[in-house]
């Protein structure tokens, strides 16, 4: 029963793991178990949350974007340069988001129009955008960002910063958008069966292009949050984030084969990935353990998930063909037909 519940609500398994993590924390030191801990981990996970939403959109269409880390770096650099050039905070952020949109559109153009395999196309743009970062910044770090910009990441209403509120709205908004609108559903339709979606009258290319474009904008937003949180922009901003984003989404039940997954699941995955870091610090373990623990848990979850899905599949198939097996058992004469053996295979 529990297994079936976890299978239908894939997000719940991540939630359970997060709860377990907090229980471990509580056993060690109860003073850590507070609403503030939850909030501080949420604040640390903002960047990962935003790009995990983007990764979910792209993965729903059976795509993959490994260039998000570079888009993050590029838009953060653009925002930083414009702000230091007395351009005003609002317009700088808008232009940075627009840069992200262009990057995403280019990825989408490669994948949807030119039909280049997604991983190959975005692998190329990963290098390309990263190089643009170095061109834009001419190799130096960007420092001395305006105080008003950094202030956006300081705690405000109800202990949450402006960015934290934006991310919260994004999470809920995208979730509802994907769940309850025709366009949101068509993302999953394209990922599940591209040709079928086309025959249903969905504009497949347009859907794919939109997914990559939104992903680009979200990556740009993540870059801006990154800049506001740490107050300066190194050249390597966003390096390796693409793998973390994909890992969070996968952990939250988004399939790389497209067609399934929820934004909430991906968000929980991202929250979990960050909470490992924070909890290790609170447990006073050395920080170098966290990648290994994250990797180990990721593998265990994946393998368990695969096993459960396999068991569910064969149980379903057994239900479907059970009546044939039982009637065959009743009148033994038809036993020599090879279907019995095949059904046995099927049941396995």
């Amino acid at each position: 029963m529990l297994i079936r519940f976890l299978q239908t609500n894939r997000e719940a398994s991540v939630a359970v793991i997060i709860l377990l993590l907090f229980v471990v924390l509580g056993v060690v030191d109860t003073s850590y178990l507070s609403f503030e801990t939850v909030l501080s981990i949420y604040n640390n996970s903002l960047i990962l949350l935003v790009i995990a939403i983007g990764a979910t959109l792209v993965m729903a269409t059976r795509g993959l974007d490994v260039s998000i880390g570079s888009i993050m770096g590029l838009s953060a650099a653009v925002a930083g340069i414009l702000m230091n050039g007395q351009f005003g905070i609002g317009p700088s952020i808008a232009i940075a988001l627009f840069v992200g949109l262009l990057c995403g559109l280019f990825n989408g153009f490669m994948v949807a129009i030119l039909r280049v395999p997604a991983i190959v196309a975005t692998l190329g743009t990963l290098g390309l955008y990263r190089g643009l970062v170095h061109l834009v910044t001419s190799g130096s770090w960007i420092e001395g960002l305006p105080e008003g910009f950094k202030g956006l990441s300081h705690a405000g209403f109800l202990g949450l910063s402006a960015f934290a509120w934006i991310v919260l709205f994004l999470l809920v908004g995208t979730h509802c958008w994907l769940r309850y609108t025709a366009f949101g559903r068509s993302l999953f339709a394209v990922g599940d069966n591209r040709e079928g979606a086309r025959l249903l009258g969905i504009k497949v290319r347009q859907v794919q292009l939109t997914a990559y474009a939104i992903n680009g904008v979200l990556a740009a937003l993540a870059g801006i949050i990154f800049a506001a949180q740490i107050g300066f922009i190194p050249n390597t901003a966003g390096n390796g984030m693409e793998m973390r984003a994909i890992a969070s989404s996968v952990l939250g039940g988004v399939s790389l084969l497209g067609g399934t997954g929820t934004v909430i699941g991906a968000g929980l995955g991202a929250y979990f990935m960050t909470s490992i870091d924070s909890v290790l610090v609170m447990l006073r373990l050395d920080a170098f353990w966290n990648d290994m623990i994250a990797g180990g848990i990721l593998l265990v979850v994946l393998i368990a998930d695969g096993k459960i899905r396999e068991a569910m599949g064969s149980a379903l198939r057994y239900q479907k063909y059970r009546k044939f097996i039982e009637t065959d058992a009743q009148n033994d004469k038809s036993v020599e037909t090879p279907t019995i053996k095949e059904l046995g295979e099927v049941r396995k």
Partner: protein
Amino acid sequence: MNRLHFLKRWETVLAILLIGEILVFGAINPAFLRPSTLLFSTSDFVHIGIVALALTLVIITGGIDLSIGAVMGLAAITLGLLWVNGVNIWIACFGALCVGCATGVLNSVAIHVAKVNPLVITLGSSFLFSGAALVLSGLGGASGYEGISGFDASFVELANLEVLGLPFPLVIFFVATGIFMVILHRTRFGRYIYLIGQNDRAARYAGVPQFRTLTIAYALTGIMAALSGLVLASYFGSARSDFGSAALMPAITAVVLGGTSIYGGSGTILGTALAALLVGYFQTGLQIIGVSSHVSNALSGGLLVLVVALRSLSEMGRAYYLQWRVLKSVGQQTS
């Protein structure tokens, strides 16, 4: 006509591109054409070629291995730890290769057991292995990202050793290319690799030992990743846990540029080897004519985008052309 058939092959295009690229850079800066420059600049990028060769096998089976970068670091750190604890350097090398082999087997078993996309599993295991490398280097006293150095002189000299006038890493690359060409194109195992990539189900019905074949492919990738980690450790004279983090994407680039389909089923070792040289010389050439290394990274990313887009466009064009020809002949028959 038949003799000219090889001109249509992708490898020929790559070879022409490679020669043209060397000539262009040579025309801009004649220093690039000196044999010693051409040969010894390969030491900067040949480790990517070494690991890309084995990765070709895995990608042809329709899988992918994202953990190679992590395995390179893990192997280098294993070598360092064993050496610090007084193990003979050659035995330590062997140990590092064994670790590489074990990681490959682990990947394969996890993929087999979970029946999940290899991309996901190796993404998870790359966190695991790079984490393990960090933990090992942390436990070994080299805190965090600091390296382990002070290796035996004979090991460090290996990277600068000349064999028949060629630098030793390049020799390893050539020998590995030869071995992998034989494995992939001349053995039953190689044909199985293609069959699994072409049609997984047909391979199963034909009785191909799938799990064994895949395990060998992933184990070979692990071993070659470890080997290239060792080459790097010897070249730099130190071992660091984040050695390979920058090598993953170039290695996949080399394989894809070499004509291997990312969906599996087609590709050649020669193509990968040529593409690895092509990308490597592109970067060093740009640096020699005075472009900064970051910009050259961007340009090689651009090169990949361009080549892949052109290939995709030409494929689409050919499909349209074939369709047009069929329609035309049908039209002629009916009229």
